[in-house]
C-alpha cells in the first residue's frame, strides 16, 4: 500500500520541461509562508520568514532587518530596531555613574557617599581588569589570583563589619563587594606607577606603596561606615580590616 510519488525525472542535462519541473521544486516553501511582496525578492532568503517586519525594516539595512525579523518571529516583540534598548542599558552598565563613582574615590579627604548609594559591580570589574592589565604589563599573569582575593576579602569585610555592628548592622554583600572594588582604584594607580619606578629603589617603592594603601584604606572604611548602619563606633577596627585587605593587594603589586 505504498503511495506513488511523482518522482521528478533525474535528468540534469534534460530539456525544457524537465528543467522547469526541477526549478519549481527548488523554491523554498516555509510552512507558514504569507504571500511575499515582490520588493523582498532582492533580500537574503531567510528574511522571508516574516514578511511584515521585513518590509518595514529593509531601509534599516540587512543586519537590523535580520535582528528584527528573527526577534519578531515569535509573534509580537520589538516592532523595529529603533525601539530596542541600547546594549549597555540592557546589561545594566552605566558608564557615567561608573565615572562619577571612580572620580569620588580620587579625593581621599572628602568622601561622597550619595553617589555610592546604589551599588553596582560593573565598575569594580572594570577596575579589576585594569589592575590585571597593569600586572600583565609587569609580567605577572594573575587574573585568577586577583579575582579570588577580591571575592575573599569582600566576604571577610562583610563578616567583620556585620559581626562588629551587631544587631543593627545592615551591610549586604553586594554593597560590600562594590565598595571594596571601587576602593581598588589607588592600587590600580600604584601598579601603573610602579611600572615606571626603577627596580632598585627599595625604600622609595615601599613609601609610595604605603601612601596608596593608606589612601585606599581611608576611602574604603569611610564609605563602608557611612553607607551602612552600626559602624560608627567601630571605625578604627573596621579600617584595620580594610588596611589588611589593601596591603594584601599591594603585596601582589610591589613584589
Amino acid at each position: 500500500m505504498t503511495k506513488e510519488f511523482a518522482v521528478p525525472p533525474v535528468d540534469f542535462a534534460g530539456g525544457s520541461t524537465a528543467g522547469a519541473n526541477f526549478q519549481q521544486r527548488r523554491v523554498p516553501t516555509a510552512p507558514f509562508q504569507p504571500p511575499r511582496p515582490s520588493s523582498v525578492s532582492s533580500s537574503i532568503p531567510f528574511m522571508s520568514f516574516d514578511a511584515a517586519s521585513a518590509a518595514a525594516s529593509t531601509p534599516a539595512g540587512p543586519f537590523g532587518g535580520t535582528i528584527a525579523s528573527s526577534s519578531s518571529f515569535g509573534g509580537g516583540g520589538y516592532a523595529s530596531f529603533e525601539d530596542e534598548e541600547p546594549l549597555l542599558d540592557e546589561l545594566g552598565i552605566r558608564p557615567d555613574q561608573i565615572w562619577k563613582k571612580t572620580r569620588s574615590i580620587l579625593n581621599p579627604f572628602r568622601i561622597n557617599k550619595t553617589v555610592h548609594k546604589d551599588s553596582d559591580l560593573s565598575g569594580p570589574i572594570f577596575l579589576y581588569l585594569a589592575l590585571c592589565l597593569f600586572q600583565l604589563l609587569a609580567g605577572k599573569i594573575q587574573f585568577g589570583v586577583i579575582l579570588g582575593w577580591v571575592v575573599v576579602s569582600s566576604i571577610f569585610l562583610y563578616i567583620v563589619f556585620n559581626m562588629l555592628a551587631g544587631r543593627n548592622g545592615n551591610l549586604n554583600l553586594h554593597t560590600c563587594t562594590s565598595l571594596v572594588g571601587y576602593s581598588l582604584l589607588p592600587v590600580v594607580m600604584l601598579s601603573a606607577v610602579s611600572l615606571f619606578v626603577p627596580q632598585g629603589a627599595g625604600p622609595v617603592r615601599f613609601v609610595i606603596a604605603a601612601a596608596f594603601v593608606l589612601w585606599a584604606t581611608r576611602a574604603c572604611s569611610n564609605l563602608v561606615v557611612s553607607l551602612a548602619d552600626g559602624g560608627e563606633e567601630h571605625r578604627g577596627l573596621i579600617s584595620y580590616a580594610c588596611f589588611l585587605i589593601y596591603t594584601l593587594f599591594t603585596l601582589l603589586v610591589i613584589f
Partner: protein
Amino acid sequence: MYNNMGPQPGMPMHQGIPQPGMPMHPAIPQPSPFGNPFSGPGSGLIRSGLGAYGEKIFGSSSEYVQSNISRYFSDPQYYFQVNDQYVRNKLKIVLFPFLHRGHWTRISEPVGGRLSYKPPIYDINAPDLYIPLMAFGTYVVLAGLSLGLYGKFSPEALNWLFVKGMVGWFLQVMLLKISLLSLGSGEAPLLDIVAYAGYTFTGLCLAVLGKIIWGYSYYVLIPWTCLCTGVFLVKTMKPVLFAEARSYDSSRHHYLLIFVALAQFPLLIWLGNISVNWLF
C-alpha cells in the same frame, strides 16, 4: 556544671551563652549543660502544649542535635562586642602578661536567672574573636611581606602560608582541647578555645615584624613570644581547668599546664619560620 540552678522547664534555650564555672566552688555535675527544657519536670507540659507535633518536633534525636550545636557553637556575636579600648588593653595583656596586675577570672553576671559571662566590652578577661582574626590576617600579610623581602614571593606561597597558619591554629586548639578533655569533661564552648588559641598569633606577628625590621631581633623575639604566650595561656586556662575538672588532682593540673606552656615553643618556632615550603 554550667547551670547551677538545674533544668529550667519554661525557658527558651538557644542562646548558648557560655556558662560560668565559679572557680571557688567545687563543680557540681549536672545532667545536661543548658538545663534542657525538653527533659525534666516541665517537658510534658511543653509537649502536650504543642499537641500532636510535640513528639515529632522535639523527638529525642533533634533534641540531642540542638543541645549539642548550641553547646559547641555558642553565639559568635558575643565575641565581637569589642571596642578600641578593649582591643588595646587586651593586646597589652597578651603581649606582656607579666604586667597584668588584676585577676584573671571572668566576671559573671546573672542573666535571666542563669549565670553567664559579661561580654568583652565590660570584662577584660573575656575572650573575643576579633583580635585572633585580625592577628591571623596580620600574620599572613607580614609573612608575605617577609617572603617578598627575601625575593621568594608568589601568590601560591602566600596561599600555603595561609594554610600553614590555619593548621597551626588548629593544632593549638587541639592542644588546649585535649588538655581540657584529659582533665575534665571538656565542656568549655569551642569558640572560647578557638579565641584563646588565636591569641598566639599576636605575639607571632610581633616576632615576624621584628624579623622584617632587623634580622637578628628574631632570635630574641621568638623565645620572648613563646614565653609570653605560654604564661598567657597558663593564666587563662587555670580558672577554666579548675572549673571543668571533676576531681581535684592539682598536681596533674599543674603538669598539664606546664606541658601547654612548653608546647608553645615548637609550635611558635614552626609558625615563625617563614619559607616557601610550608612543612618546614
